[in-house]
């Protein structure tokens, strides 16, 4: 069923595919974070922008990844951008939702108190709103990272420059070689679970005051506790 000798022969490739997977994930999450942060800030300042932003990012999310990666090839060629652009686009919905929920969760009294103590609006934003939004910001990073790790696999569709560990899955399908498909699947599951656990640990350290969930909805909305009152 599984050709273990083949797997042992390909440990080098396994290592560099893992690095490729992490590189594509990190680049996409970083860019997605920056763009979504801008969008979230814009939409809390100018509320009318929120619905179109959520609608737009939601619509992007319905484009199947099996289509979006290949459809970019004629535009960006076989460059890293062809993998990173869709990954960034898919991360936006997760980030924007969590950021906006995070800023919304800051109680109005606290904002008023900050205004009353003489914060400028920029000072209030960076010293009061962002720190208080951190639990949901961090939860968004975790959710987006795990989702991006899964989607990196699909970019293996484009050929051997892409896909990280998912490349093995596509290569195995091309050759009808279950061992390679299995290796890609197992390794990318291990990577996803390990990263999720690492980010959960980071979440606990960064926001120790947040009651750890018994999640509702998703790891992202897990920290959205019912309003006390």
């Amino acid at each position, binding site marked *: *069923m*599984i050709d273990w000798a083949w797997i042992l022969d390909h440990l080098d490739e396994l290592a560099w595919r893992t690095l490729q997977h992490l590189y594509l994930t990190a680049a996409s999450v970083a860019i997605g974070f920056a763009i979504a942060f801008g969008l979230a800030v814009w939409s809390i300042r100018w509320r009318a922008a929120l619905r179109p932003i959520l609608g737009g990012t939601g*619509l992007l*999310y*319905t*484009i*199947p*990844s*099996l*289509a*979006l990666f*290949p*459809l970019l090839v004629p535009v960006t060629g076989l460059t890293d951008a062809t993998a990173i652009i869709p990954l960034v686009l*898919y991360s936006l*919905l*997760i980030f924007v*939702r969590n950021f906006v929920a995070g800023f919304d969760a800051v109680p109005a009294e606290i904002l008023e108190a900050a205004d009353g103590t003489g914060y400028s609006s920029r000072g209030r934003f960076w010293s009061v709103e962002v720190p208080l939004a951190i639990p949901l910001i961090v939860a968004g990073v975790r*959710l987006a990272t*795990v*989702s991006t*790790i*899964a*989607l990196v*696999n*699909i970019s293996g*569709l484009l050929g051997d420059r892409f896909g990280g560990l*998912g490349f093995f*899955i*596509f290569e*195995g*399908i091309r050759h*009808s070689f*279950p*061992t390679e*498909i*299995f290796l*890609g*699947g*197992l390794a*990318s*599951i291990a990577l*996803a*679970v390990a*990263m*999720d656990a690492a980010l959960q640990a980071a979440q606990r350290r960064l926001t120790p005051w947040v009651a750890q*969930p*018994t*999640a*509702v*909805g*998703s*790891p*992202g*909305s897990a920290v*959205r506790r*019912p*309003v006390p009152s």
Partner: protein
Amino acid sequence: MEVIPGIARWFVDPAHWQGPAGVPARILEHLAMSAAALVIAGVIGLAVGIWVGHTRRWAGFAVNVANIGRALPTIAVMAIVLPVTAAFDSQNGFKVYPAVIGLIVLAIPPILVNGYAGVSGVDSDIVESGRAMGMRGREVLWNVEVPLAMPVIVTGLRSATSQVIATATLAALFGGPGLGRYLVEGYAQRDYPMMFAGVILVGALFLAIEGVFALAERAVTPVGVRQRSRDLAIRPGVGGGP
């Protein structure tokens, strides 16, 4: 831009609406595969989630396992299932089973977690009132906890359904059925109108299902809790992925 006329021509070509590779057949395959996965995931997820929410036994364990399940890339689950199913059934083992099993794994976590959250989140005063009125444990479960948990349960089913409908396209990678075939075959043949048609069909199906659930969520919410449940609305999490 000759893409848009190309897509329009693809859609009006009667050949694309007939036979086993036609749009109606592919939509039915897509729905059948998704429904099979959702029914199995629904039975498992609701049974475990509601039981755990009612008894509070094993709650942390069940929710933690479900949350790890959320992290699993569906394509990877399909990939590790494949050697097993291919060994058992060389005909379909390479096609539909890995896809359905991957989709079941995708769908269980939101259903289970929301089943648990819905039932365990019912106000304990209400549960005690039920007991005080002489209801037994099972009656409290079915007449009090489950009806009040229904909006949250349906939200979980909705979230699972959206994710499954979107992710079922991956089945085509393993030679399986459904709308993903237009994407995979379109890419293999560099037939961009076919790929765009696939994107549009998947998006339309996705939005249609979302619409059905929006109505269903309203319908199952007991009238008395409608306003309140909107305030506490637990939005479906984004998992699985496009």
